């Protein structure tokens, strides 16, 4: 078997937000590898730190965020330590990012075509005429009808889906190696969600890029991902291939999430849910952070934090009792 090339290697990353009530650790010791050419999904509930992790990669964190420790190696370069100018060369050209809210992500006072064209002008030193032509082509590629005409329009005349398509056009003109999509469909209508996902999937194959998809929706995971990382309260609790995660989840939290989806699909059984709410990141629980909500909790879970270990081939989990979890399948 071919050894996969590691494109993005996050090591022991710790990020906190300084707030008036103290330091909120949004990402607490996360390590993660993303292989070239794959679609990696980072899944978790709102507020688990997955967006913070995503924003940290191109260093787009808000000013009150502090990176406490760790490194983010992209093609062997530590993104947290390169100069600003080097980083600017990488952003948009090698590492591109799409955000959650397309409604506010485009500049309202500039024409859509101009905003797309800015990218090749910056990175390929293209002339404006050439870049605008590229922009029109790219807008057409992502499915904007009449791209020549629409590229001269302002964002407010676009629908949410069209805005997200324009964002995708903007971020893929330079055919980046890594495309980070932070909940790209959350703000959109359900019908449009599928189209946008399909578009991302197509572009990934067409340009051979690596897709890091952040989502809270396990349905999306099942459809497009190769591998999955599950985050809970600032930590990665499980990483595995998508089939493995669905067939044999080893972390109680992952299992709970999947049961929610499956229960809904079966639709006859009553809605499954994980009891309790996600913990405060200001004062996280001791030991395993999931223990207050966990059905498999033992004394060890309260006292000692489980480490993320490879328990099967390409399957990492952070749970003291994963054997018990893995033993009971949802289908029984």
């Amino acid at each position: 078997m071919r050894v996969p090339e590691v494109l993005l290697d996050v090591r022991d990353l710790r990020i906190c937000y300084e707030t008036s009530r103290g330091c909120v650790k949004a990402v607490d010791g996360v390590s993660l590898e993303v292989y070239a050419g794959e679609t990696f999904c980072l899944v978790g509930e709102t507020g688990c730190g997955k967006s913070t992790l995503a924003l940290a990669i191109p260093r787009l964190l808000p000013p009150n965020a502090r990176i406490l420790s760790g490194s983010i190696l992209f093609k062997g370069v530590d993104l947290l330590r390169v100069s600003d100018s080097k980083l600017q060369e990488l952003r948009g050209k090698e590492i591109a990012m799409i955000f959650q809210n397309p409604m506010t992500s485009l500049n309202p006072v500039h024409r859509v075509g101009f905003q797309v064209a800015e990218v090749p002008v910056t990175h390929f030193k293209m002339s404006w005429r050439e870049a605008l032509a590229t922009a029109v082509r790219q807008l057409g590629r992502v499915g904007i009808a009449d791209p020549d005409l629409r590229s001269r329009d302002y964002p407010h005349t676009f629908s949410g889906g069209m805005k997200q398509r324009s964002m995708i056009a903007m971020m893929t003109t330079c055919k980046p190696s890594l495309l980070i999509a932070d909940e790209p469909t959350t703000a959109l209508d359900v019908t449009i969600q599928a189209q946008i996902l399909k578009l991302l999937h197509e572009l990934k194959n067409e340009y051979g890029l690596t897709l890091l998809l952040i989502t809270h929706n396990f349905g999306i995971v099942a459809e497009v991902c190769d591998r999955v990382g599950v985050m809970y309260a600032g930590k990665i609790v499980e990483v595995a291939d998508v089939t493995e995660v669905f067939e044999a989840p080893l972390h109680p939290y992952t299992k709970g999430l999947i049961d929610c989806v499956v229960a809904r699909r079966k639709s006859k059984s009553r809605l499954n849910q994980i009891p309790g709410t996600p913990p405060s990141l200001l004062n996280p629980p001791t030991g395993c952070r999931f223990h207050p909500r966990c059905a498999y909790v033992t004394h060890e879970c309260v006292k000692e934090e489980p480490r993320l270990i490879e328990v099967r081939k390409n399957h990492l989990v952070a749970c003291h009792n994963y054997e018990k979890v893995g033993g009971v399948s949802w289908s029984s």
Partner: protein
Amino acid sequence: MWFNKERIRSLESNEVLRLFLKHKRGVAGLILLSFMLFIALTADFIAPKRFDEVDPSSRLLPPSTEHIFGTDQLGRDIFSRIVYGARIALWVGLLVVVVEAGIGVPLGLIAGYYGGSVDKLISAITDMLWAFPPIILALAIVTILGPGLTNVVIAVSIVSWAPYTRVVRAKTLSIMGREFITAARAVGESSLSIMFRYVLPNTLAPIIVLATLTIPSAILYTTALSFLGFGAQPPTPDWGAMLNEGKDYIFKAPWCSIFPGLFITLTALSFNLLGDALRDVLDPKLRLG
């Protein structure tokens, strides 16, 4: 906003107080304002002389231990006049704001509550008023009414209630869609009762902020009109009128002009500092003008 999580502020008084006390400039403004209030209230005790006590033998004396701010062209003690002037400035500021709010708030409530053509009419009047230069309009009104402090207060109030209508209207519109209004209507509350018992309390925060921030401009307008000679008439120790008299002696006795202006600035500053802090604490998204 891509990072500031929507800050939801409850109007619980201890939370507001806690946030306010952390606001250094706001506290500075409050201290300054308390000082002005103190001298205004205790003027009878701290002023060494009466504000109209003329002393021909000590005209235009520079500041000294006897007259710490000097004396004016009639030999009146400037410090005493300033202390009494604080009463006028604060009273005028308060009065203007009360009149402005008295006109502007009900109009804003009505416009926001009824909407439609009523709203259009009120908004049109507000916009038209907005188009007039305030001092010019105030001058025109003073021309009709004649000079005097009361007339200046009326003139300034008439020309500057528009912001209250705008702010209250906007706030009312945002409240009208909420469930508790629908509920109040459903149980048969009258329009008047809904407006004053349900809507008005929810517009109080912006009104308080607006009032604090319009007091300094009211003081600046009225002193400007007094400075031109249309406001308070001698021997009233109005700071603007003092500047009007003092400007003729600007080289011979600059203290006649320096101190009244300094106190206008300090008073306006105290309200501006306080108002900024109140806005930050009560209604960070409030936009004025």
